């Protein structure tokens, strides 16, 4: 199968193959309806709380109601979230608290969907258990720390004919959608994309291990039952093998997902990478990782690099798409988006898009050094490329559009922006980076490696 197939075709083809996206919607018998969707939050840590707050900010008439929350940290996450949901009881939410997810799924009879925001190594078990109860699932990325488990999540969703949205929230961010659909596709302002680079750099201070307030420890037997050696490991699971995947998975995954998305969901033919536990002594996963992917596309090969650091925050996080006619810099960070025209490209070529209001010219490029009719070269500071901006802002809380896309898909009004099949492709890309670092060699990938 051609791996440049676009996402819409991909989704409808997987649905037609019995994967059940459309089938699941009609099975609900409420296409177009605004029926209340009852949800539970499974995993109430920092990310779970971000999702919860984004949903609470949908307000009174969202038709989405929390019923319960589950987290093994009773005196930490669970207390905080159930307290918030209790306060929002006036809007019809309920936050019955559970430590054991099986007990929650057993007792909460009127759920329609579950948000899974537990550590990566729990995603598959939690997601599959929800499907077995006939519930739709919004699962945080990374889908899983194991590709086999990630595949099983997709298969279980198809079997249950329930939806699986993976939390690559940029796929529903209007600024990203605009860049992909308008700037890259419709106006083709970059022309042939040849290279992509991206990064997420964090300062040392931002990467210190998380602690916990004295007296809030999870009982040892509970930690053990749920797969953690101790409280420190529970709080910092992202750094441990078998639990998380390190920064390349936590952060890189979001951005490498966008690489693929903007290339019409192309998948790479190879990855090589370097990284290591170079700075933080107690961690198992690589505290810095630098990867290079090769993406074959219809227009030619795209070479893409990605880097994540935990010692220096220089330049923060962004993705940079480089074509032979222009450059697009985009970041989820609010307001960060720039578009440059290569200086050899005639301004007149981009003008129509400015006239249409699709892009705004912020700073024209410096005029040519030799003006028409002049016989001398005007020597001055080096010319800067013309800078344009996208006239679109993210006006909703982060993650909210992606959650809304999930809820509207449950109602049959939309299709998922990041179904499990797409999440799986991204999981392959980033988990293979860790594999390439460990193997210290280039890993070749085949299109079928990305298929469930």
């Amino acid at each position: 199968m051609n791996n440049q197939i676009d996402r819409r075709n991909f989704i409808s083809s997987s649905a037609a193959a019995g994967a059940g996206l459309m089938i699941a919607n009609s099975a609900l018998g409420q296409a177009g309806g605004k029926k209340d969707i009852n949800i539970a939050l499974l995993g109430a840590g920092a990310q779970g709380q971000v999702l919860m707050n984004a949903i609470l900010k949908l307000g009174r008439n969202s038709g989405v109601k929390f019923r319960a929350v589950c987290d093994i940290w009773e005196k930490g996450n669970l207390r905080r979230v159930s307290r918030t949901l209790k306060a929002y009881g006036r809007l019809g939410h309920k936050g019955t608290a559970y430590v054991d997810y099986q007990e929650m799924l057993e007792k909460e009879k009127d759920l329609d969907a579950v948000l899974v925001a537990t550590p990566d190594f729990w995603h598959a078990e939690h997601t599959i258990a929800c499907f077995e109860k006939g519930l739709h699932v919004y699962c945080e990325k990374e889908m899983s720390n194991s590709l086999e488990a990630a595949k099983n999540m997709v298969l279980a969703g198809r079997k249950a004919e329930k939806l699986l949205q993976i939390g690559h929230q940029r796929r529903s961010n209007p600024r990203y959608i605009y860049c992909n659909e308008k700037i890259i596709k419709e106006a083709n302002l970059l022309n042939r994309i040849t290279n992509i680079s991206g990064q997420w750099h964090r300062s040392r201070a931002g990467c210190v291990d998380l602690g916990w307030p004295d007296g809030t420890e999870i009982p040892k037997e509970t930690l053990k039952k749920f797969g953690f050696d101790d409280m420190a490991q529970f709080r910092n699971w992202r750094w441990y093998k078998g639990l998380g995947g390190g920064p390349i998975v936590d952060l890189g995954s979001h951005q490498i997902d966008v690489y693929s998305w903007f290339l019409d969901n192309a998948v790479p033919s190879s990855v090589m990478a370097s990284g290591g536990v170079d700075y933080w002594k107690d961690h198992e996963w690589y505290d810095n990782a630098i990867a290079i992917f090769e993406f074959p596309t219809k227009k030619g090969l795209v070479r893409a690099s990605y880097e994540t650091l935990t010692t220096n925050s220089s330049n923060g996080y962004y993705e940079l798409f480089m074509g032979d006619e222009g450059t697009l810099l985009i970041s989820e960070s609010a307001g960060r988006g720039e578009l440059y025209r290569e200086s050899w490209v005639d301004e007149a070529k981009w003008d129509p898009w400015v006239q249409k209001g699709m892009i705004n010219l912020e700073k024209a490029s410096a005029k040519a050094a030799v003006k028409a009719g002049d016989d001398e070269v005007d020597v001055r500071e080096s010319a800067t490329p013309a800078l344009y901006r996208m006239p679109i802002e993210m006006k909703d809380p982060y993650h909210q559009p992606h959650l809304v896309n999930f809820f509207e898909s449950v109602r049959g009004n939309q299709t998922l922006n990041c179904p499990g099949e797409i999440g799986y492709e991204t999981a392959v890309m980033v988990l293979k980076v860790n594999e390439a670092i460990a193997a210290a060699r280039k890993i070749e990938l085949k299109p079928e490696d990305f298929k469930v």
Partner: protein
Amino acid sequence: MMKRQGDRVVDVGARSITDAHHFAHEAMATVFELYIVEEDEAYARQGAQAAFAEVDRLELEMSRFLSNSDISRLNDAEPGQTVALGMDSFECLCRAKEMFGKTGGAFDISIGALYGCWLHEDRTLRQPSPKEIQHAHALTGLNHLELDESGFCAEVLTEGVQFDLGGIGKGYAAEKVAEILREWSLDQALVLAGASSVLSVSVPEGMSGWPMKLRNPENPNEVLARFELKEGAVSGSGRQKGQHIIDPRSVDVGPVKGRLAAWSVAPDAIAADASSTAFMMLSDEEINEYCLANARTAAIILPHADSGEFSSRTVRCFGELEEIELET
């Protein structure tokens, strides 16, 4: 200093702020600093990290410079449109409205239109037309903001009214930081939200209070007053040379002379932040009334001296403030 030995806490006595661990973090266009007295530095650092993470989270909720913050969503809303808010923004707006009422409208988070009317972008004075003044006046005041407690939501009643939590957000964040430090049993701590808002979580064993000094903003070498902060917060407002103050209560008179600097001591950092702003323009009588009406509240005022004489002799105090030492 408190010493942690397993679960036992032993008092070994702290003597000064230099015995406290110091942590700093940039957020909300300033630097948040914590002084924490705690034997286990690693534990204090992790508590500080949790507190700073909360400040970062609050900035995303409340900054008007972020297009998807609660405040931006409120500022973008059409009149009559209900905006569902997070608990923090909602609570902060409620406190802003409360302080608007308590200060007779002198503290006003909707004052932006008036500043835009009377000042150029470089903050120099401009002369607006009566129509412009009228328009700005019509867009000022928290009577344009409806808060609905039954739904954590807000409604802007008049098109074009803009809100900015800049004058109260740091105080709110300081209170939330104190909550987290208490959860961590790190309550022998001092929170600085920039140099202008200071909150004592509690006074460490062995200290009688956190030492504070107030300086003359026009002559930083001159210390005007010293006192010990035991509980609650102190907040300062001042103005740089040439800076103008608009009193939202008297829109048509334009910039007012106001004070050179004002400090407020209050039971919490939100009240301190808002009242110190208001004290820059309230009259002596109004400040006195405010301090009488609000428990554990005091004001220290450095009036604008026409004679150009800025010395501690001109400092005036209102309300109850134990052991304040004026540097006469």
